[in-house]
């Protein structure tokens, strides 16, 4: 079926039109789970097996998280199919996650026959209303002829401007109806202007402020990666000589060994950038939204600094932190524009203050955590060892919680787009299915999943998807037999009342083996490096369980609601 024209075909069913529309959008791969109301689409898919690769996950939540990570790893739009009712509602967590983390996905759900809409038919849910608050756009199709335009708009909306999730709900009769298919790509929607106009005057004002600043700090967010502006960011940082930190999702936008990169801001971020947020005279926030995990207490956040906020989504400007220079637009374009006139300035003392802070943090936290010589294995040393062995080249996927924070803090990212994690929504169970999407989206890269024992058990059924598709994913389970992050909060803020955070776990390596995944469990420090090497040398999926300390704490920490200056380096109960 080479060189087929996907744009026109006479007398096709709505279902075939769905497939043809996806092919017209150059979709090569999608995720999904079949069920009654989407069966006609799956039947049409059967004729296009050579053109469109479909991955059957073991739960709809798995398919939507995989689609998200596929989008983030490949830069394309992720696609997933689900049936009506429970199939559709199982997508909700992934949609909410994708909306928070600006991920372009198009979800197509089957719906009951349009005659039965509103009758509480079998597997009927009003998914348009249910998904409205967690989608960038959604639309219900009740007639086949609406399909090409709906899908074309869906792709345009998902990908352009600030990316996000879109859901198209198609009734079964629309899937079965015949019509003459014709596809036109969308390039304009009269109500939606994805690219705000650059305000050149304001940009040049902002550049003047930067050029005159003594203590500027750049905070680079996910937007830098989405707009593929890592190189421009590094050029800007070097040309102007400004220290830079990233947000959790901005991780890997700067190479870890860059002399002006000082780590992560936020609740478990690095000491220097957090403390210096409240010492800076100018904050240049690029493609980030001042989430409360970054600002902690917005009233006590950088009130001394002029804020330059570069952001494509106008509604994020002045939402959490007031911007003195709101630069609404694409990060790459604006950085390029600013690069023209930004000037080098010596800021030796300011830059040294970040190094001094790092030295303090290294002595009080990093060294103890990454190189403990006694006691149980530390999560930080596992990440640190993986980072050293892989030379910071791997694509790291994480679940949510302590595993995620240690991965972000201690993996020394060398390449952009190397960190896929659920940031805004904090979805436990994201990791395993996301690793599937990441591997399929970037097959040439080594994909390593860092996951905890809690999150793994939320979506553990996706082991089967990995095996069925023979995916070479490295899974590192940091097992502390606790819901570690919640336990840490219970220790610090709830007088160590460990209410339902301790877990009695199954034999994980036996489960992996039962699925046909090679596995190994590490309990001793001196086995760690060998275990990681064994995992990395395997040509197949490998499951490495590491028994880590039960009551480890992620530090530093800004207690919720405190000023970023009140960051704790140590904690003694």
């Amino acid at each position, binding site marked *: 079926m080479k060189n087929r024209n996907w744009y026109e075909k006479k007398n096709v069913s709505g279902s075939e039109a769905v497939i043809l529309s996806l092919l017209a959008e150059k979709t090569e791969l999608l995720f999904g789970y079949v069920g009654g109301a989407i069966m006609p689409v799956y039947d049409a898919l059967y004729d296009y097996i050579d053109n469109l690769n479909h991955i059957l996950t073991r739960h709809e939540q798995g398919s939507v998280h995989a689609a998200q990570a596929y989008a983030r790893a490949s830069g394309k739009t992720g696609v997933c199919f689900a049936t009506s009712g429970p199939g559709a509602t199982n997508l909700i967590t992934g949609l909410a996650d994708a909306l928070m983390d600006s991920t372009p996905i198009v979800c197509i759900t089957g719906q009951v026959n349009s005659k039965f809409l509103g009758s509480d038919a079998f597997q009927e849910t009003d998914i348009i*209303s249910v998904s409205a608050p967690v989608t*960038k756009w959604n639309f*219900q199709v009740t007639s086949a002829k609406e399909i090409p335009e709906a899908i074309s708009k869906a792709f345009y909306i998902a990908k352009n401007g600030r990316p996000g999730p879109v859901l198209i709900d198609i009734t079964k009769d629309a899937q079965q109806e015949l019509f003459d298919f014709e596809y036109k790509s969308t390039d304009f929607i*009269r*109500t939606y*202007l994805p*690219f705000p106009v650059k305000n050149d005057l304001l940009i040049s004002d902002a550049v003047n402020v930067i050029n005159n600043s003594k203590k500027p700090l750049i905070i680079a967010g996910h937007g830098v990666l989405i707009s593929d502006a890592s190189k421009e960011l590094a050029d800007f940082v070097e040309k102007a000589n400004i220290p830079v930190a990233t947000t959790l999702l901005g991780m890997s936008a700067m190479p870890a060994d860059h002399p002006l990169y000082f780590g992560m801001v936020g609740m478990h971020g690095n000491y220097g950038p957090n403390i210096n947020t409240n010492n800076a005279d100018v904050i240049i926030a690029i493609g980030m939204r001042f989430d409360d995990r970054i600002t902690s207490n917005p009233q006590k956040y950088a009130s001394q600094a002029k804020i330059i906020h570069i952001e494509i989504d106008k*509604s994020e400007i002045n939402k959490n932190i007031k911007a003195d220079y709101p630069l609404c637009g694409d990060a790459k374009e604006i950085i390029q524009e600013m690069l023209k006139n930004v000037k080098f300035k010596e800021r030796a003392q300011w830059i040294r203050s970040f190094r001094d802070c790092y030295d303090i943090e290294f002595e009080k936290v990093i060294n103890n955590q990454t190189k403990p010589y006694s006691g149980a294995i530390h999560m930080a040393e596992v990440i640190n060892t993986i980072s050293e062995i892989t030379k910071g080249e791997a694509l790291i996927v994480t679940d949510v919680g302590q595993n995620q924070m240690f991965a972000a803090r201690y993996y020394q990212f060398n390449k952009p787009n190397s960190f896929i994690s659920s940031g805004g929504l904090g979805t436990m169970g994201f990791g395993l299915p996301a690793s599937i999407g990441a591997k399929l989206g970037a097959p040439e890269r080594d994909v390593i999943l860092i996951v905890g024992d809690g999150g793994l058990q939320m979506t553990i059924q996706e082991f089967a998807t990995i095996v069925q598709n023979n995916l070479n994913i490295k899974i590192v389970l940091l097992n502390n037999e606790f819901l570690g992050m919640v336990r840490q909060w219970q220790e610090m803020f709830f007088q160590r009342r460990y209410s339902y955070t301790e877990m009695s776990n199954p034999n994980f390596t036996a489960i992996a083996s039962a699925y046909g995944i090679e596995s190994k469990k590490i309990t001793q420090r001196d086995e760690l490096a060998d275990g990681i090497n064994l995992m990395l040398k395997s040509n197949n999926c490998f499951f490495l369980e590491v028994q880590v300390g039960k009551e480890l704490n992620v530090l530093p920490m800004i207690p919720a609601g405190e000023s970023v200056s009140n960051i704790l380096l140590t904690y003694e109960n």
Partner: protein
Amino acid sequence: MKTKEYTISVFTENAPGLLLRVTTVFTRRKLNIESITASESEIKGIHRYTIVLFTTDEMADIIVNQLEKQIEVYKAFKHTNEELVYQEIALYKIRAKSISQADYTEDIVRKFSAKVLSITNDYIVIEKTGYPEETKELYGSLQKYEILEFVRSGRVAITKPMKSLEEHLNEKENIYKSK
């Protein structure tokens, strides 16, 4: 934070499901909508919501941005009462027996510039268009009779600034074309 009355005008495509997206912007922030009306605007196919609420100026700005973030919303505006010409309509159904015995029916209708819409043996329907205070005041005057039903519409409002919606829309289209 001082709250005051704001009127939010939202211009949208006539798309099903959009009412939910518009109201969710308010409800998820636990903002109570005082009144809401929707109708077609001066441009064919473009609908106009008029929403009244009490809130702070900062929140009104956030609301406008969040509304404009919705794909099928063209444009949203916030206005204070001074920037608007606005009206509401109220209908009062009075038991005929109770009011016809009174001498003041004519006085009341004249005084309030109200209209009698319908008279039957059982009831009289009076209409009053005006500010909420005026329709409330008439309600007060009619209370001595037997009010069988009372209904008041949401606010409809026209803005005083002269820039038309069409100009705003053309701006958008020109930006697109210049890309």
